[in-house]
């Protein structure tokens, strides 16, 4: 039996009456699950937590589907839920989060093995690994809001107006956060280049 049928059987008649674009949750999960998981994984840097938060994101979306008015894209709405979950997790479980990180953390070496090798020369590969490590470590140093905005822009490649909708911030504030995040990365970038020279 499809999950849609099971869900509609269990719901009271009053809730069944209002159809929402989120009723077909199977399709929505199939379409956005990987993207939501990626955001959680790079934000939290823990696979188990990322998996759990991804499930929570869709569970919350399903429970609150009646509040979805359709004034933004479903992906935007889901990312907003995901962002709130990351915020809740890092705020309430901050201490436990950092303790867990020491055991199951996603290390920069894990990521480095996925660097695309367009050029097979050893030197270029070393440079690529160094550049990646620089950004990876810099992102960890950012404030919570800067990191969220940075990841929405440079990981999910969202436009500033969409980031503003997700975060509930004005576009100018989003830009300011991005300027600061890039300033951190740029400072480390320049420092590394000076050391190399």
């Amino acid at each position, binding site marked *: 039996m499809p999950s849609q049928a099971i869900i509609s059987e269990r719901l009271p008649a009053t809730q069944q009456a209002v159809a929402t674009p989120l009723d077909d949750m199977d399709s929505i999960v199939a379409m956005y*699950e*990987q993207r939501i*998981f*990626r955001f959680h*994984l*790079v934000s939290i840097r823990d*696979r*188990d937590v*990322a*998996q759990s938060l991804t499930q929570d994101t869709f569970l919350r979306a399903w429970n609150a589907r009646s509040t979805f008015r359709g004034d933004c894209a479903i992906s935007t709405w889901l990312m907003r839920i995901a962002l709130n979950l990351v915020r809740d997790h890092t705020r309430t479980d901050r201490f436990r989060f950092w303790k867990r990180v020491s055991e199951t953390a*996603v290390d920069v070496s*894990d*990521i*480095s*093995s*996925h*660097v*695309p090798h367009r050029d097979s020369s050893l030197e270029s590969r070393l440079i*690529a690994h160094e*550049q*990646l490590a*620089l*950004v*990876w470590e810099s*992102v960890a140093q950012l404030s919570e809001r800067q990191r969220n905005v940075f990841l929405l*822009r*440079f*990981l999910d*490649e969202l*436009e*500033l*107006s*969409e980031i503003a909708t997700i975060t509930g911030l004005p*576009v100018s504030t989003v*830009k300011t956060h*991005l*300027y600061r995040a*890039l*300033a951190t*990365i*740029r400072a480390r*970038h*320049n420092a590394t*280049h000076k050391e190399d020279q």
Partner: protein
Amino acid sequence: MTLHLTHEQLCDVILADSSLPREGTSTIVQDHLHACLHCSAELESLRASLALFREASTAYAGQQFVRSCMQRGSIAPPQHLLTQPLYWAAAAVLLVAASFPLNLYRQQQHRPVPAATAVVTPHTTESDEALLEDVDQTLSADVPSPMEPLADPTASSTSADSTTYQRKN
């Protein structure tokens, strides 16, 4: 003194966003980037770093996503939990603690049922009757003759009197 792009100008180039209106400085910035090797090199380096970050993170997340999907199909706990002896010890203690009251309950259930509910077969009925007869015989044999109940001496006269009385009436 050579002038370079400000941080905001450099960021605006990196953040080039189609959703935002183009500002008038973009042409000036582009001209400067064509002319200044320092700024263009830094811009390219930053862009390359950010692209590497995105590509590597996406590839890694994709691999982890597949792994998570494969693990989700199984109901077994994570492997790192199974390999830790502390968890095994805790599981054993819990198992013993849970099975103890269960065993007590089972023992209570298997106690013999009272004889009242036993099924009476013809064979047992016959043996019971024979046993009762034996008991009667034994009892009657054990009673000495002086202790036997006396016959009612007035039995015959009473019946005769009553007959007489009826006749009189």
